[in-house]
């Protein structure tokens, strides 16, 4: 086993060494060139690899996916918009789109509200760094790891037996003698899975919103306080309007993550029990059912859904950089 590990690390290290050596060699050789060729040569060497990889890895595949979405399962017969009709009208797919819609509304809103509440409250406490670190910590964990953590919380056993799932045990302690088999109960299971997303993302929302609140200029808050604004009114008429853009950015960012959500569903339920969502269905259609046409159509739908959100987000971020 150790020999196997050594070979693998050797391969990885070898790849890195060869990569760096080739780069240095090219740099050395091309650095000697002078005169009129030196600039085009530099541009080609610096920019060429990235552009080539982007073309081969993103641009061409994206165009090809759009093409494939109009063909049948093995890409031999043109179907027109049939795959899209299927995606929007078959009852199974409608359920999936409905689930996805539910996800992108509930999870981002809950995350942002919790993040805002924490951002407002946490900075006044002693040891605030500690609280922030623990709430931010799930951001470091993979969705797969987070799913296993929560799958254990949702573990179900017959109520007559000793429980090992925390949620069931809490229900029993609180006097509910018949808690359901959480993961199998539709539609409750969708919300239980959303808890995982909220758990992971709230730290992100808290940190970003906390920074935005700290950045509100003193004069504005002081003027409002002199005018008699206190408590809730100060929050409603000063804080919220001042951080509106950041709130929208946090909301859309979590929405984007939610739309592309794949790992949680894959690990928790595999898309069964009425919990399937768009990104996981796209994977299942493409690589389990081997229906390239339908899988591609779902990928395009995902792309079109994400497009305005990402577009808004990166334009917003760029503008904020510019004004800073």
């Amino acid at each position, binding site marked *: 086993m150790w020999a196997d*590990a050594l070979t693998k690390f050797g391969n990885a290290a070898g790849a*890195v060494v060869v990569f760096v050596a080739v780069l240095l060699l090219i740099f050395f050789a091309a650095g000697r060139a002078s005169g009129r060729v030196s600039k085009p040569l530099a541009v080609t060497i610096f920019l060429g690899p990235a552009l080539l990889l982007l073309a081969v*890895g993103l641009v061409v595949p994206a165009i090809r996916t759009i093409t*494939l979405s109009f063909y049948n399962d093995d890409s031999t017969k043109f179907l027109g918009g049939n795959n899209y009709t299927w995606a929007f009208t078959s009852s199974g797919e409608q359920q999936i789109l409905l689930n996805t819609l539910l996800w992108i509304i509930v999870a981002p809103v809950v995350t942002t509200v919790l993040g805002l509440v924490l951002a407002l409250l946490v900075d006044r406490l002693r040891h605030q760094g500690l609280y922030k670190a623990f709430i931010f910590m799930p951001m470091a964990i*993979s969705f797969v790891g987070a799913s296993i953590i929560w799958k254990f919380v949702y573990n179900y056993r017959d109520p007559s037996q000793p429980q090992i799932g925390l949620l069931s045990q809490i229900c029993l302690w609180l006097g509910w003698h018949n808690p359901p088999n959480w993961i199998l109960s539709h539609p409750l299971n969708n919300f239980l899975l959303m808890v995982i997303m909220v758990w992971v993302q709230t730290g992100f929302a808290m940190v970003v919103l906390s920074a935005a609140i700290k950045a509100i200029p003193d004069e*504005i808050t002081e003027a409002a306080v002199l005018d008699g604004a206190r408590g809730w009114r100060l929050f409603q008429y000063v804080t919220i309007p001042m951080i509106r853009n950041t709130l929208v950015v946090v909301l859309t960012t979590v929405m984007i993550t939610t739309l*592309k959500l794949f*790992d949680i569903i894959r690990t928790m339920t595999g898309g069964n029990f009425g919990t399937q969502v768009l990104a996981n269905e796209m994977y299942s259609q493409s690589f389990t059912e081997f229906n390239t046409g339908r899988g591609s159509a779902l990928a395009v739908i995902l792309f079109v859904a994400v497009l305005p959100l990402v577009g808004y987000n990166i334009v917003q*971020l760029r503008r904020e950089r510019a004004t800073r």
Partner: protein
Amino acid sequence: MSEETVEVAPGAEAPVVPAGGQAGAKAVRRAFSSPIASFLVIALTVVWTIPTLGLLATSLRPEKDVAQTGWWTFFAHPGITLANYHDVLFNGGFGVSNGLMPYLVNSLAITVPATIFPLALASMAAYALAWVRFKGSDIIFFVIFALQVVPLQMALVPLLQLYSGGAHIGSVTIFPSLGLGGTYAPVWISHTMFALPLAVFLLHNFIAQLPNDLIEAARVDGASHFRVFRSIVLPLATPALASFAIFQFLWVWNDLLVALTFAGGTPEVAPLTVRLAQLSGSFGDHWEILTAGAFISIIIPLAVFFSLQRYFVRGLLAGSVKG
């Protein structure tokens, strides 16, 4: 170089706090000051931490205890063992021959090159776009910037077809099948491709702000672009490179989708996340093993998080729209 330029995150008013805002922020917060507020924060922190604590406690309990009692009884009747970790790493314990060890090795062997490759290529591209003035550089930068909107789901199927079958137009092969199946190469290359738009964008923002005098002076003294890049730009861009490296390392380490698509599920190439997702589906009742396995997979990100929190938060905020 000021603190402000160290900041690479375009994250919304990211965590570097402008000095002026403190008093005003205090006024807002005073308005929310009450024992109830403190209680709420502490309660939420506890709720946020308990699930992970349960995972850790379970992974340290003997198999028999895990199956019979809840992990919360562990603190009343402690019985610590590392046997689960030994089992999950080396024996498997599922009736599967090997444990997680090969997958742990794969995770490392995938993640390190998949971090270094895009870092090098993106910093080169960012330098060319920022400092080698040529016609069309603005358009190229905008196109790379705009590619951030393409979700990687759009590329999976064609890319997999390319790796396994090559590319053909009619009967003409324009790109041969490379026979890379069963190696790390497809995973490394795919992660590199998907990382580039964000990496070029972030590093360009930083590299373009380096002092003009420094680079011009070196150029006038006759240093080639390659020399300027290696001796001036890379050392000065270290904070940005570090932030992106940490972000990319964790992104690849935690990734499931790319690995599942391009590595498959074999012990030769699949990383930990892929194996854990499989185990969670098929061996859901061996909690002592599953929790130990999950803890092994999250211990590295947690270590990075607690030791490099500053870079970590920045990197994550910067990359929050990736994918």
